[in-house]
């Protein structure tokens, strides 16, 4: 199993490199850059602009730029954000953490609801519980993130129970650590719920379908034939096998979650990577866009790796057979 995981780990590196190269290339193809706007400004001399460009290597061909970018990223320095006028590293790390928080809690909520519901629906197949869950899942799958976020904003504004956007109150720094924590948690709830609401349906249907398939397997009949109680058969024998395919869709779920987070962050003003990407996009800060995309990909790739780890640990066929 370790060699399998090690190989996967090694695999990640060229992947991230490839992604950074691809994104860099795309941004290099973009017409204009940060300085196009500046050069319209008569107050800034063309020498200043030329000087700034040289400093950030923006006058070089794209592969040279990429080399410089890669070099600095590998030493932990994400360069300088021209739009925000601060070093990009702290900016990115802060936003990355926010996106991670949002995605992580959304995932916990989504899976926490979806798995039990899926199991319940499978065990009580064709009952009104099952049909109700299926209907709710359908509706859940069909509601677009955009609509849900807008409705959540409206809900927050109308009831006043939740803050309308942002990750913390303006006065957060003045609060005691405990208050700070609750303040941030309070801001996190609605975006996390919205993000989870978009994700849970697919997982629930998959869990239900997996469990139904497993319950049809011959080893389940064989287990019953040995006199094992129905509950034992379902929760020990069937469920254990039904979980494994879910780990494989974990990757897709995470990808959808990160994409969804992009929308939720931008609509509900949650300061994460997605929001930063749009801000960088509008400011034509190409380095920053590349940084964000690579970071988000990194998050996804690491998440997938963890899922592989879990799958290898859980399924002996993979652990021992590669």
């Amino acid at each position, binding site marked *: 199993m370790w060699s399998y995981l090690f190989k996967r780990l090694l695999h990640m590196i060229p992947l991230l490199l490839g992604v950074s190269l691809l994104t860099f290339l795309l941004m290099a193809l973009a017409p204009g850059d940060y300085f196009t706007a500046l050069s319209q400004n008569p107050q800034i001399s063309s020498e200043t602009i030329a000087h700034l460009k040289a400093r950030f290597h923006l006058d070089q061909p794209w592969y040279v730029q990429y080399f410089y970018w890669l070099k600095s990223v590998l030493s932990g320095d994400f360069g300088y954000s021209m739009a925000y006028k601060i070093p990009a590293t702290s900016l990115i790390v802060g936003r990355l953490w926010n996106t991670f928080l949002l995605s992580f809690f959304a995932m916990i909520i989504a899976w926490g609801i979806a798995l039990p519901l899926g199991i319940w629906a499978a065990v009580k197949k064709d009952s009104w519980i099952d049909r109700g869950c299926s209907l709710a899942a359908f509706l859940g799958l069909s509601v677009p993130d955009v609509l849900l976020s807008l409705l959540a904003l409206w809900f927050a504004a109308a009831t006043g129970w939740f803050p309308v956007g942002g990750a913390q109150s303006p006065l957060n720094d003045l609060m005691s650590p405990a208050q700070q924590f609750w303040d941030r948690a309070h801001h996190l709830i609605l975006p996390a719920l919205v993000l989870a609401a978009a994700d849970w349906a697919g997982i629930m249907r998959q869990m239900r379908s997996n469990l139904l398939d497993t319950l049809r397997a011959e080893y389940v*009949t064989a287990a019953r034939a*040995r*006199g094992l109680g129905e509950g034992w058969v379902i929760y020990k*024998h069937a469920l254990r096998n039904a979980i494994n395919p879910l780990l494989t869709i974990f990757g897709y779920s995470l990808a959808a979650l990160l994409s969804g987070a992009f929308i939720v962050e931008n609509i509900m003003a949650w300061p994460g990577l997605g929001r930063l990407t749009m801000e960088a996009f509008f400011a034509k800060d190409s380095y920053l866009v590349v940084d964000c995309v690579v970071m988000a990909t990194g998050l996804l790739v690491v998440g997938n790796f963890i899922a592989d780890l879990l799958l290898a640990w859980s399924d002996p066929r993979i652990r021992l057979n590669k």
Partner: protein
Amino acid sequence: MNLLEIKNLKMDFGTGADALRAVDGVSLTIGAGETVCLVGESGCGKSVTALSIAQLVPMPPANYVGGEILLNGRDTLKMSNSELRGIRGGVVSYVFQEPGASLNPVFRIGNQIKESLKLHRPLGAPFSDPARSGDANEPGRRPALQNYNNEIIRLLKLVGIPAPESRIRNYPFEMSGGMQQRVMIAMALASEPKLLVADEPTTALDVTIQAQILELLHDLKQRLGMAILLITHNLGIVGDMADRVAVMYAGQIVELSPAKELLRRPLHPYTKALINSVPKLAGGASRLSAIPGNVPRIGNFPPGCRFAPRCPIARPECSNAIPELVEVEAGRWVRCPFWK
């Protein structure tokens, strides 16, 4: 009292107008220590009949509309869930066709056997079923367990698995088909059942392994005094294993007879055709004889005798009414008025 008495069992799939009768009036008895073979082509209802003994057919869609199954005198069709759990494994054990699919792929085989032991033979008590604890003195029965591992190793040795100590920690996929089937048999024996139902236990295995497994079953039967209901579509097995044979066609038993008699002198046209269609290696080359036509599908049974459309001696009156299963000689039953 016979160990197992299936009386006029009738089972449908589905209800109402869509109901399809899979088992139509099947009656069969098995005495203690007897081996009965249930023979028939795919789709004739033999597996479903066997699974019905412990009510293992999913209901819905299965629907029992008539008859009874008496196991040690009690009707299993009327048993509650807890009573059923008591007999499953305890009185009747199953061995299924595909051993790879019958073993849970994510648990080690030692653990799976232990699970069965914990259920039926908890440490210190010979049997968990109070009705059976009086059997401690029956020939072949073991005393109470003190240690699971030893018992697991003993069972694995019993079914002929070499070096069982190292096999305990194996996962099913790490074993060959033959080994997996032996493990299944070991699990079935863990609770010392009185009736072992083996549903095509060797169909998925190579021919040489088939022979080994059958020999194992034969050996175990003699040692443990257990009755076996062996389901197969392979007539070759019947001669080696069975005391009596029941031949099924389209949901009904068409011939029931002691094994040697059946093979020597089959009475029902279907049985005759089956025996004739087995290719003979010795003797001059001749055309393979096949039974013309196809097995009727459930729900599409012809009127009257169900074999009539394909029967070489069929007469017009055969399609009028389903013939009764009649005892025409001692211990020999046929469902055909023109068997002579």
